[in-house]
């Protein structure tokens, strides 16, 4: 078994982990760092449930080798709140009824976070495109789009 010691910043904190070279980032986040908010719906980049931000960009952590994160900045759903207080984005998901079973929610919030942090002026179409790598079977996406729109209006 080959391992590699990597250093990354996860949700603002520096973390040093010895990862197995075979592991996906998803497995390391859930298994070693206990960040269970990162979900697994397919393991092959199709559903977006495992979305995290790497250096600010949303990626599917299931098809990202953990060894690649050495020196990188990772953000997961657990890093979205501050001091136990929901971010405006999270609050918008609650208020707009964008959550049902909730399994897709962390992934959607991370994709939406990247959109909001892009600093771009976003149209509805931009939002839809930005969320198109995340699947949801419960909501028909309607309230998720509304939540992101609301978060933008509230200037997160």
């Amino acid at each position, binding site marked *: 078994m080959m391992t590699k010691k990597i250093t990354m910043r996860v949700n603002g904190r520096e973390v040093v982990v010895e990862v197995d070279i075979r592991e996906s980032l998803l497995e390391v986040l859930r298994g070693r760092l206990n960040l269970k908010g990162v979900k697994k719906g397919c393991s092959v980049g199709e559903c977006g449930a495992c979305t995290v931000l790497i250096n600010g960009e949303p990626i599917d952590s299931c098809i990202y080798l953990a060894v690649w994160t050495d020196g990188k900045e990772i953000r997961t759903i657990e890093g979205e709140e501050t001091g136990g207080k929901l971010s405006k984005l999270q609050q918008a998901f609650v208020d707009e009824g964008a959550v*049902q*079973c909730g*399994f897709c*929610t962390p992934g959607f919030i991370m994709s939406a976070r990247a959109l909001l942090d892009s600093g771009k002026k976003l149209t509805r179409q931009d939002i839809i495109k930005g969320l198109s790598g995340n699947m949801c079977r*419960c*909501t028909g996406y309607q309230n998720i789009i509304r939540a992101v729109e609301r978060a933008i209006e509230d200037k997160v």
Partner: protein
Amino acid sequence: MQAIGKNVRRIDAVAKVRGQAKYVDDLTTKDVLVAKVFRSTIANGWVKRIDTSKAAALPGVEAVVTYEDVPKHTFPTAGHPYTKDPEHQDVADRNLLTRRVRFYGDEIAAVVAVDEFTAEQALKLIEVEYEEYEPILTAEDALKEGAVEIHQGTKNIIDHTGYELGDVAAAFAGADYIFEDEFKTSIVQHCQLENHISYAYVESDGRIVIITSTQIPHIVRRIAGQALGVPWGKIRVIKPCVGGGFGSRQDVVQEPLNAFLSLTVHGRPVKLEYSREECMIASRVRHAIDFKIKTGVKKDGTIVARELQAISLNGGYASHGHAVVSNAGAKFSHLYPYNASKFDATTVYTTAPVAGAMRGYGIPQVTFAVESHLDDIARSLGLDPIEFRLKNLVQQGYVDPLSGIRVDSCGIRECIARGKELIRWDEKKAQGKGNTAPAERGRPQLKKEQTGTVRRGLGMACFSYTSGTHPVGLEIAGARLVLNQDGSVQLQIGAAEIGQGSDTVFAQMTAETIGIPVEMVHVLSTQDTDLTPFDTGAYASRQTYISGMAVVKAAEEIKARVLNYASGMTGIPAGSMDIINAMLVHKHNGEQIISLADVALDSYYDRDSASPITADVSNNARINALSFGCTFAEVEVDLATCKVEVLKIYNVHDAGRIINPQLAEAQIHGGVSMGLGYALSEQLLFDPKTGKPLNNNLLDYKLPTVMDIPEISTSFVETYEPSGPYGCKSLGETPAISPAPAIRNAILDATGIKFNELPINPHSLFKKFKEAGLL
């Protein structure tokens, strides 16, 4: 009303947006072993030889079991309440593992290892030799003379039933026109985001604990007991947060095997998680049903007789089996009742994935056939499809002769009127044959006759749906309330929150009934068969209606006890007090007497009278109510690219009183998007030569993405259903029923082409347009 009818925020939303909600895989312990199933790579046949020695020898493998090692008796898996009547029990046609292969991916052996990787490697070391038969994927193949029997002695028929109401032959003889047609629906899959997963271990007292993502914890307990041959009380089932169900978890898919595997490794915890690819073929799918439909109509558009024949394709094991098509038959006459109707259905085994329950339980299929057929008839007779329906629709007060269900609230006419108005039906229809809506969304205005390659059309379809399963199934639900020291209450229910929002709605009902704010209701969202009361689970759109009855009853009881206790404290008769906003008040003038918190504290700690206040209710609801509604859709069809764009879709509901509009609306969004997928893109495909699934993953199975779903508009016609708690009726499954036929009818309006098979995807558009000379 302070809580009912309000947009109360989901009580679990905060945990979910924080990523703190706990699903099965978030609860496993570090020492958990991992199991993987060894699946067949043929669709039909036998295992001639299996050799697991290499797998067993792999370091890290704790156990390898095959069909040789499992109990010899068979068990059922359908998520139905148990029945003592052997005649009506679900078909028990499964073993935990099988030597006889009945679909591609059938379960032959299983491996338990220290981790997932080792388990996967071990699977590759299992050697197997098959005797292979041709796959059986169609009704014709299943029923043809000399077909290989998938289950011995069945002739591949699970069941065959029917009924006749009135004199059908005479009624047809009296009809001015008779219309006949055929419709086919396809195999689709639930695709809930969380795959099937459970973990099981054995307590030191020998009891088996199964933590599982299920809709039916109590049924899992019973079926695990049956499958393992142990007393049901020796099994404890715990249901944490569930990542969606839609019926795929109204079935006992993997829990008994997982418990068996844990027993094999002496009770150590074992996790069994299906991959997406496995989940799509080895959990459950929706039945593909072939329909033949015949309708007799008078000149004035009155329907006088109907006949429906159905063959339902069930896959390799019975699961819910014939119940699904029976349900379709039993309910196909609710919406347009007539004196004469006939139904005949057969459910056959095929060597495809097992069909079970999926959102609508046979009704999306039959509604596609019926509502499409009705539009075709209206077209042939030159009648407006809406007028034609209105002429034949059910009236309030109607009693269904088969089930005895009485229609006590009926808003279908208002639903249709609302939908018509919202989509501007008359206005758009007035603009010409087909539809020539003014330019919208920047699209060019179309020519009147619609001769171009891009054509627009309008369509609609109606539905009706029951609330729960009475009188076919037992409708029992349990609720327990405990008054805490601070005047808040704990609510324990047997009904399962799986994402639909039932916990929130129950909290609202409790709060309303007792007279406290919703925040003072703490719902135990985890179902645990050792702790939470008995309830059959989340299915049949039953929870708000059926389990809600139990919740309201429990809340009424606890309120009565509080008032009684307070009467002892204050000397005021219980009957002249009420609770408003957690304060006990005089009924006649609303003056405050004492806070609920003070009563509660006293009930715990008063040295003389202390007796903590609880209520524990079990309700056997021997009643049912019909929900109604419709979908209106406007489509744009590009003939040349064979693409359909849904421009507008309105889903209008009479679901009685709406307890939580925001949750109800969200439920509709999800259902409609599922309906859109059913209509236009979703279909599980198999290689006809081998029976091998071709697209059992989320890239190749066309679940709609956010880019594929148009804006979904919803509307409620609120009626009051006297039998329902706070006047409510079913809403869980109903939104998914009518979109497919509405879209189909809109495509017909746009192109003049009848699509009688689902899905109506570009491949089928191409074929039909080509045949019709449109290309």
